[in-house]
């Protein structure tokens, strides 16, 4: 399929984005019919969701067929859209009034341009493969039907998110994917950790959503509409005060950090691995978590102007990305759970994307998003395959040597690893290289350095993962076996783009730039595109290879008992020192292991205890202290108590006054005459 796209692109030559019509509707002539029906993309899986929910259980495959059909349709439509787009369709802007509220008409609509089409392809491809993969992976699951329903709902929501032409509609999709994530992370909710993880994911992202909501509101009032294109136009043509723009950008960034697991809101993503693995591949690697990146890319005008990206140096966006990519990479080192390695890796890669956007490398970020989706999905599904084989464990200490038992999984996993590590000519290389290039050209030294270190670490921890999983002796129970076709075929399909897709932006071809570009009509704004820099490419390749080599030395050649190195890097150094033959390499690896280990550990400790601790602490404090305080002390004692006290006091006064009703007639008379005398005197002589 991608090959066909490649063919068409070679035939078409240069692609030019048509200018966008003003109101959307007028522009329809130039836009392709297929693209104009972009609204079908979220709608079909949405219908499928309800169909599965209500009729799924009665069908022979318990509703999976409906999901497959729907996602198959969207996939085909995405491919057709890609053809049409590459074939030169204009941007599609269609909208209709959703509702009128106050002075404003709130629209619902679609905006289909290169970015949208790219997201279509990413989402539907991964989703389709996950649908297929899950047939086997979740076979016999007690909530099989609900699982497929949730997948459909997720696909619908995600496609709605990417097709939305306005922020409000985007928020709808954004929240819905969050719910799907919640449902799917907690799919096996019988275990409390799973539901805890689901809650954590939802609540953490929800914290970010506050930012998104407030940011959207700020932009809404600044521009008078939720329409993203209008917002970009206003942002780029000085239509919004810079202060306001900065505020909005920071607020949106909060949302982005929540969804795309950026430091310090990244903590939910590793826990989210509690969900079924295909879900992790789809939601927590390829699609949902990139929603934040997508949002930044989509509303880039706001961020570009808000953070003054063109002025270089450093900015909050780039810094967030840089810090995240580094920290997450370090964290990936010390995981035993293969999915957690991949999860941290995802966080790290998302950091790359955000950093790329922060340095103005829009295309690089989007391109990385694109390539990453394929190879990371591949890796997750591979991990799932491994676990499927190795008695449902994800602990790498119980794996090893699987290369022999499951070759197809092994080879596809290797492709994913290499692609992630950024070794040419696989997909990851091209996109990561562009990011580093962008950082260099944009004069963001910090990001360049962090990115390079990250590249080293990426290669290194992925090497570790591969060696621990596939090499050495099998350390688990039973006899592993290769997964069936429903699992391996999707792996193999994903391996293809992981291998090749990067080439579409390779020097000499460079089509991705044309297909997917940040373009705002009626605004003179141009993001510089940097030409391929062979020197930088070479350096980054070397770094990656070096990282891989270190991993090889540490994890492949060493004969230390399993897991020892993880616990005692110093003894590992000692072990290696005995191997004089590899002295120099060992020295290097020792330093690497010796520094990376403590650093990683330290970071992890900080992560678990400080950041996670703060987040959990806020939760716990709210739950254990603030909430009971509010309820027990403020509400029950103070507020409610006050009312009860008033009632009590009234009653007590009544009791006292009641004593005056003594039953003694002459006491009554005394009061009568006293009142007469006092009253008469008061009236006569005081008034």
């Amino acid at each position, binding site marked *: 399929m991608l090959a066909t796209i490649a063919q068409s692109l070679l035939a078409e030559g240069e692609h030019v984005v048509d200018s966008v019509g003003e109101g959307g509707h007028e522009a329809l002539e130039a836009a392709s019919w297929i693209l104009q029906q972009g609204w079908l993309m979220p709608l079909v899986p949405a219908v499928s969701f309800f169909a599965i929910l209500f009729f799924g259980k009665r069908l022979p495959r318990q509703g999976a067929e409906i999901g497959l059909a729907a996602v198959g349709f969207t996939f085909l439509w995405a491919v057709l859209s890609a053809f049409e787009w590459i074939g030169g369709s204009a941007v599609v802007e269609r909208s209709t009034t959703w509702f009128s509220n106050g002075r404003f008409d709130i629209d619902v609509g679609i905006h289909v341009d290169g970015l949208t089409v790219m997201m279509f392809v990413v989402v539907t491809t991964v989703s389709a493969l996950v649908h297929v993969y899950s047939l086997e992976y979740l076979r016999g699951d007690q909530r099989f039907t609900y699982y497929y329903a949730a997948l459909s709902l997720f696909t619908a929501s995600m496609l709605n998110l990417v097709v939305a032409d306005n922020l409000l509609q985007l928020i709808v999709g954004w929240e819905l994917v969050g719910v799907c994530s919640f449902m799917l992370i907690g799919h096996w909710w019988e275990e409390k950790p799973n539901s805890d993880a689901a809650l954590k994911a939802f609540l953490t992202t929800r914290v970010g959503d506050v930012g998104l909501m407030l940011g959207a509101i700020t932009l809404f009032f600044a521009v008078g509409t939720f329409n993203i294109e209008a917002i970009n136009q206003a942002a780029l043509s000085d239509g919004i005060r810079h202060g306001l723009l900065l505020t909005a950008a920071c607020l949106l960034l909060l949302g982005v950090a929540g969804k795309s697991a950026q430091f310090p809101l990244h903590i939910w993503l590793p826990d989210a691995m509690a969900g079924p693995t295909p879900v992790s591949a789809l939601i927590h690697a390829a699609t949902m978590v990139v929603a934040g990146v997508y949002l930044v890319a989509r509303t880039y005008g706001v961020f570009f102007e808000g953070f003054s990206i063109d002025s270089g140096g450093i900015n909050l966006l780039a810094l967030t990305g840089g810090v995240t990519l580094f920290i997450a990479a370090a964290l990936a080192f010390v995981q035993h759970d293969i999915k957690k390695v991949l999860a941290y890796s995802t966080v790290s890669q998302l950091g790359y994307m955000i950093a790329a956007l922060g340095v103005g490398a829009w295309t690089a970020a989007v391109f990385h998003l694109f390539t990453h989706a394929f190879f990371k999905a591949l890796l997750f599904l591979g991990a799932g395959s491994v676990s499927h084989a190795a008695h449902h464990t994800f602990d790498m200490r119980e794996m090893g040597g699987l290369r022999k038992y499951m070759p197809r999984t092994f080879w596809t996993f290797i492709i994913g690893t290499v692609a992630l590590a950024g070794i040419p000519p696989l997909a990851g290389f091209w996109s990561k290289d562009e990011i580093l290039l962008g950082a260099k050209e944009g004069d963001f030294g910090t990001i360049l350095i962090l990115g390079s270190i990250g590249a080293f670490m990426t290669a290194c921890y992925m090497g570790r993962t591969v060696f621990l999983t596939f090499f050495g002796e099998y350390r688990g129970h039973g006899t592993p076996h290769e997964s069936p076709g429903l699992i391996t075929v999707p792996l193999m399909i994903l391996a293809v783009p992981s291998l090749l897709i990067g080439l579409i932006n390779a020097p000499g071809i460079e089509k991705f730039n044309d297909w997917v570009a940040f373009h705002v009509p009626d605004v003179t704004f141009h993001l510089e595109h940097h030409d391929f820099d062979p020197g930088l490419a070479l350096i980054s390749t070397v770094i990656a290879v070096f990282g891989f080599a270190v991993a090889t030395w540490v994890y492949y050649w060493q004969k230390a008992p399993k897991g020892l190195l993880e616990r005692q890097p110093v003894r590992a150094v000692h072990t290696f020192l005995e191997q004089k033959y590899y002295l120099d390499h060992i020295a290097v690896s020792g330093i690497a292991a010796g520094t990376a280990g403590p650093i990683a550990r330290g970071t992890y400790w900080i992560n678990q205890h400080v950041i996670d601790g703060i987040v959990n602490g806020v939760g716990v404090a709210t739950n254990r202290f603030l909430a009971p305080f509010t309820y027990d002390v403020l509400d029950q004692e103070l507020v409610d108590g006050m009312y009860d006290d008033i009632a009590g006091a009234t009653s007590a006064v009544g009791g006292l006054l009641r004593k005056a009703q003594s039953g003694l007639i*002459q006491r009554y008379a*005394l009061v009568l*005459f*006293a009142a007469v005398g006092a009253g*008469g005197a008061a009236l006569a002589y005081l008034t």
Partner: protein
Amino acid sequence: MGPQNVAFGIIAAAMIVGAIRVVTTKVVVHAALYLVVVLAGAAGLYVLLAAEFVAWAQVLIYVGAILVLLLFGIMLTRAPLHPSSELDNDQRWPALVVSLGIAGLLIAMLADAFQDDKVRITNATGTGEIADSIFNQFVVPFEVVSILLLGALVGAVVLARRDD
């Protein structure tokens, strides 16, 4: 100081002493006798004021009827004929304070209002005049009072008689 004033002084003194004895005596029957002094004194005052009809009415109704009733009451409740210290309750002092207070209020107010106004007694109020007034202007209350008296009579009989 005319004879009228002398008469007033004597009557007033008798009345006040009588009234004080009524409210302080330790023998119930004595109280009734002192009350006669007060009531008769009042009749005397009416005569002084040339309101003869009222004076007669006072003597007839009060001394003749009400006092008799009260004496019946004393007898029927078997009031002791010897001094008893149980006739007063425990709120004499507050009662004194309240009554003195009211007295002070009233006297201050009256002194203010009428200062040295004199009573001009031109001629005795004739019975006819009173009858005219009653049967012209006050015929309604008169009729009603008659029914009221009937009611009081019937009711008092029902209450006071033994049913068994």
